[in-house]
């Protein structure tokens, strides 16, 4: 089982991101579970969401304390919250930021080669006109981890956001996916 913990702020669509990831992985043939740890749904408040991906029935519903992947929707969170807490050895981090991995000041230490960065808010703004990075981040996650296919992510995005909004967000996801792939070369 792979466990994913997302840290974001209210208004960034972190829960929709978790839903998109779970739906996409399910479509790829995995068993998935997504759930939020709601605050009081205020804009800007720190929120956590959790996704589990597995080959068999997922029964536990507790929070994720030892994630395989950590996704950071808003880089300003890393100064206040120990977002890397409990991460499995070999775990990977994806951050929505304009900075380089070595410029990020996490509260715990981490090898730079386990961090990937993507300017998801900028990509979202350029392509969709809105500064909501959730779909773009999921595209980046697909490119970075290969836990889920980009085709399934795009379909899940369009299902979640019908019409033009979904198409543009799917395009943003595809762009982030390609950037992650480019980064590997």
């Amino acid at each position, binding site marked *: 089982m792979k466990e994913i913990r997302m840290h974001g702020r209210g208004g960034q669509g972190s829960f929709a991101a978790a839903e998109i990831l*779970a739906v996409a992985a399910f479509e790829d043939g995995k068993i*998935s579970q997504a759930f939020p740890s709601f605050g009081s749904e205020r804009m800007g408040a720190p929120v956590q969401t959790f996704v589990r991906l597995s080959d068999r029935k997922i029964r536990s519903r507790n929070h994720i304390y030892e994630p395989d992947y950590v996704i950071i929707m808003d880089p300003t969170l890393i100064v206040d919250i120990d977002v890397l807490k409990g991460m499995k050895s070999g775990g990977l981090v994806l951050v929505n930021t304009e900075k380089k991995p070595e410029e990020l000041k996490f509260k715990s230490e981490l090898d730079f080669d386990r961090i990937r960065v993507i300017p998801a808010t900028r990509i979202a703004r350029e392509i969709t006109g809105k500064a909501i990075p959730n779909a773009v981040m999921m595209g980046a996650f697909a490119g970075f981890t290969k836990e889920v296919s980009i085709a399934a992510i795009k379909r899940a995005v369009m299902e979640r956001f019908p019409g033009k909004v979904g198409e543009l967000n799917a395009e943003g996801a595809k762009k982030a996916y390609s950037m992650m792939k480019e980064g590997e070369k």
Partner: protein
Amino acid sequence: MEKLWEGSRAIAETIKMCRPKVISAYPITPQTHIVESLSQLAADGDLVAEFINVESEHSAASVVLGASATGARTYTATTSQGLLLMLEVLYNIAGMRLPVVMTCANRAVSAPLSIWNDQQDSFTARDSGWIQLYAEDSQEACDLHLMAYRIAEDKRIMLPVMVCLDGFFISHTFEPVEPFEEENVKQFLPDYQPLHYLTPKNPLTFGSFAEPDKYTEARYIIHRTLEESKMVIRETAEDFKKVFGRGGGDLVEDYFLEDADFAFVAMGSIIGSLKDLVDKLREKGEKVGILKIISFRPFPGKEITTALEGIEKIAVLEKAVSLGSGGILVKEVKESFYGRKKTPQINGFIVGLGGRDIPQDSLENIYREFHQGSGDASFVDLNYELLGGK
């Protein structure tokens, strides 16, 4: 084919299949998504039902009471403060023998204000005459709703049923669910045929005045019927398995109890985490099992003692507390064993109040401490710093 749905959506799709004629509800977190979906389905014409908007939960319960008395199949849903506000009406619905089905998306009660999960709300209604069934996951929550209508409308029963599912842990979790096929549902749950109902052609009184010479008998009959409903719940669960090919328990469900010397007893979504823990402990050769209680009312005392026969230590986990008395479920489990020659050691543990997460480590600690020593922690994972170090 399975769908990856949010729990609330899965419940709404199930209710649609159950074909209620009247739905009334007042939105409250974490129940909101269920009734939002139903109101959308009704507005789109995908569900032919009257969706009646009201100004409070007291009114929502009153609307389904009245509608049910006219012979219509009805549905409502609530949680927490909403359930407390409904309480007066809930007693009336049971007393009038109306087969209303409702969902309680379990949430803590105020004060302090908490929108998060525990089971204090539905525990508060435990003496009201409603049958209460608790779900472990989305699939079971769906299945129990379908069974709930069958049980409620059974002419031997005619009592309301509350299906309880943990708020957020089930209501807001996306997980795979097998949707119902219309044909199977119609076979399992035919249209409701009321025996007695309000109509101008045949005026009747529901919930009439009962003088002291009759009141006790009216209450006794409800109690006796709840006892008898155990058999109907068992039959219904069995028939459900035949028609839909899935399902496990009826009143209770056991997990690795056969050779166990230690058992957890619990209700609701915590069972999933407990199953993962038991699998882990079993791999190390430890003889641990679980008894899941599905039906809290009627209380399956006999089924509990039978299932736990020969087990030495029993940890009862519950997400509610009777302030000034302690655990509620644990006392009922203990009472089931009263008077027997050999009784197990039974300890109660209050967990997950107001949405506090219950990590697997906490569950394992309960097991280790109780298994090796006494470990009557009562309130688990208390933060002593918040209590001034005491």
